């Protein structure tokens, strides 16, 4: 056993209202630079829908993640030799059109147009070429099922008979929101795909990052990630991805998407896992066993033996403490209500989801009615559409864990309603879903009351073991084009013949020269 700590996330889909605040704050912090306009480290998709980029879940097309071949785990897109054969052209790389071509509007026309009979119009123009753009697709093009009759059928989760049901029941259309960030997997296929060794997983907190100095533009990570959460900066020629806001995490703060979440749906906490068994867990034969296999990797932070080994493996006491209070461990392991996204990709993802009960409830209840478990439980079992659709997304097609999760959520509602009405809830209700009354209360507190410091239990990084932060002061801002990278040098030598591409579209920002920087390579 080798104990490692990982900062993991759970999102409660039942409470996501699809407001996109997470996406917008993330974008304002990380991807509002040239070359990153089309990137959404965090995006919110309406399901069913094709997603972003289009059909990212279709691994027959994109060949992301891992597969089991002859009992051995290998990259679905092929091994090392194939990587070399496709360095010149990566057949599985999405193009910009699979995401969307970013655009702005010709606002100048509005102020400079001569007086005329009609109002002037600001035409959309591409942020890549600066030319007028005929808009065909964009971010959240299918928000709230927009265009669903045309597009939603292309959702790769609509398979195994589920697509039939969806067609038949379309008047009772169901939908929910799926916010997505990088999964910071235990077995990251993007890292394994990178020929340069520029991508890495941090030992201390499990965050997966791209070393901007070492990235050589081979773009295998983009296709290797089955979640399509590594993006290619077309301006710098480097890969970029969600950083789990590591500067904030290191300081014990939640990521910006979590911090600003209106519905308080996100949870961040430490999970201890057995690093020696990662490959074994990712290699189980049956895809449906991947969820139990991953759960078996997670170590009980209350177990003295685990704590002893964790100390030997260099995990600090405050991290062990945080692991005991971890909301992620509670929701995923103790209460079993959180499930991983597409475990069949075999990357062992570390952003888990509490499935939404709402589509079920709205069908059973109608607005304003009561959630009587006697009605809800059979409904959960009978409603094949949401259950199997959710199973295709969260459990490699096994409906049982989804059912358990939804039943527990329904039981929690009934239980708490009784309490609110001053009635002593029947312990049989808790027993029916295999929980103790106090467990239901604890789950209710975590999911519904959701206090800030219970949702986010993030121990600070031990700065004393690394590079002095003073040496890095100001070294890596993102407020100018081309970052993150060797920021200071970048300003002067982006292109030794001149700082700007010749046909640069006029975003008017240029290479911002007012960034104070300190070259930490010299300083250390």
């Amino acid at each position, binding site marked *: 056993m080798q104990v490692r700590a990982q900062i993991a996330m759970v999102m409660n889909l039942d409470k996501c209202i699809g407001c996109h605040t997470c996406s917008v704050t993330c974008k304002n912090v990380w991807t509002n630079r040239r070359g990153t306009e089309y990137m959404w480290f965090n995006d919110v998709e309406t399901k069913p829908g094709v997603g972003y980029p289009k059909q990212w879940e279709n691994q027959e097309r994109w060949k992301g993640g891992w597969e089991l071949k002859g009992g051995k785990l290998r990259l679905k897109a092929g091994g090392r030799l194939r990587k070399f054969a496709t360095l010149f052209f990566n057949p599985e790389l999405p193009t910009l059109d699979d995401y969307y071509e970013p655009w702005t509007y010709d606002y100048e026309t509005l102020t400079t147009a001569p007086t005329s009979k009609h109002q002037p119009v600001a035409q959309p123009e591409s942020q890549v070429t600066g030319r007028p753009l005929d808009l065909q697709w964009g971010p959240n093009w299918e928000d709230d099922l927009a265009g669903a009759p045309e597009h939603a059928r292309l959702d790769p989760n609509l398979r195994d008979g589920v697509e039939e049901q969806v067609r038949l029941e379309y008047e009772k259309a169901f939908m929910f929101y799926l916010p997505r960030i990088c999964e910071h997997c235990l077995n990251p296929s993007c890292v394994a795909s990178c020929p340069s060794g520029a991508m890495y997983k941090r*030992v201390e907190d499990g965050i997966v990052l791209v070393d901007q100095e070492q990235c050589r533009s081979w*773009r295998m990570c983009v296709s290797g990630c089955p979640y399509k959460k590594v993006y290619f900066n077309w301006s710098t020629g480097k890969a970029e991805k969600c950083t789990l806001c590591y500067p904030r995490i290191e300081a014990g703060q939640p990521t910006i998407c979590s911090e600003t979440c209106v519905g308080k749906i996100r949870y961040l906490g430490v999970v201890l896992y057995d690093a020696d068994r990662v490959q074994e867990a990712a290699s189980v034969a049956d895809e449906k066993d991947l969820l139990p296999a991953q759960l078996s990797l997670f170590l009980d932070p209350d177990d003295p033996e685990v704590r002893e080994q964790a100390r030997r493996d260099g995990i600090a006491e405050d991290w062990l403490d945080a692991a005991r209070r971890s909301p992620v461990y509670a929701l995923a392991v103790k209460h079993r209500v959180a499930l991983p996204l597409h475990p069949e990709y075999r990357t062992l993802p570390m952003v888990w989801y509490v499935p939404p009960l709402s589509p079920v409830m709205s069908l059973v209840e109608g607005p304003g009615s009561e959630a009587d478990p006697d009605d809800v439980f059979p409904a959960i079992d009978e409603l094949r559409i949401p259950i199997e659709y959710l199973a295709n997304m969260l459990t490699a097609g096994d409906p049982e864990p989804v059912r358990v999760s939804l039943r527990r959520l329904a039981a929690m509602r009934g239980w708490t309603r009784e309490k609110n009405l001053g009635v002593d809830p029947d312990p049989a209700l808790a027993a029916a879903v295999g929980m103790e009354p106090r467990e239901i209360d604890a789950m209710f507190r975590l999911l519904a009351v959701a206090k800030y410091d219970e949702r986010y239990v993030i121990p600070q990084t031990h700065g004393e073991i690394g590079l002095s932060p003073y040496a890095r002061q100001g070294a890596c801002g993102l407020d100018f084009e081309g970052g993150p990278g060797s920021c200071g040098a970048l300003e002067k030598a982006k292109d030794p013949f001149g700082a700007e591409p010749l046909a640069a579209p006029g975003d008017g920002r240029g290479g911002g020269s007012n960034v104070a920087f300190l070259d930490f390579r010299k300083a250390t």
Partner: protein
Amino acid sequence: MSRADTFFWVLLPYVTLTSFVVGHVWRYRRDGFTWTARSTQLLERRLLLVGSYAFHLGILGVIGGHILGILIPNGWTDAIGVSHDLYHWVAIVAGGAAGVLLSLGAIVLVYRRLKIDRIRATTLRSDWVMYPLLLVTILLGMLCTFVGGLVDEYDYRETVSPWFRSIFTLQPKGNLMVDAPFVYQAHVTIAWLLYAVWPFTRLVHVWSVPVGYLARSPIVYRAKRGATRTALR
């Protein structure tokens, strides 16, 4: 040798080599961030598929041909029983084929860069210097192969090759180049210019062929604390 001859056949090679070596060291140390192939596949894939494969496979063949014809002395191939005729025809057929593939690829890539708006938008100033030099070098090389090989036969292995090798032994025999046909002179001169600007262009990616990937463990871990923990497998 005239002053011009000394400039082209003695001075220029050394100026170029200095720029090449010092330029690479400078760029790598100063600026790892821009050391990249700057792929544009995200923006356009159809033309790139043809252009990139043709160019890269072609250039590998052409590099092999240059090693054979320029770096390996006449005497060595004679010694293993390769006749002059055999060498000549191998050079023309194999070299010509690789060259045609390379030229085709280069033309497609240059066309793509000029005509596809998205690619043009990501074109750097260094590209506007590098691409013309590259294209002209390749086309002059093709002329050398076909004109010097078929039309007006010229044995560069007696002149150009020993001159090139003499540069690296620091005994430059510039006089060997004085009477070489113009296409050969032009080919090597433009090539020197290409090498001189090489460290300042996207061509630096050539030195980043990820050979380490073949031996590396799949998952890379990095630790704050000194040495990286060993990977899982």
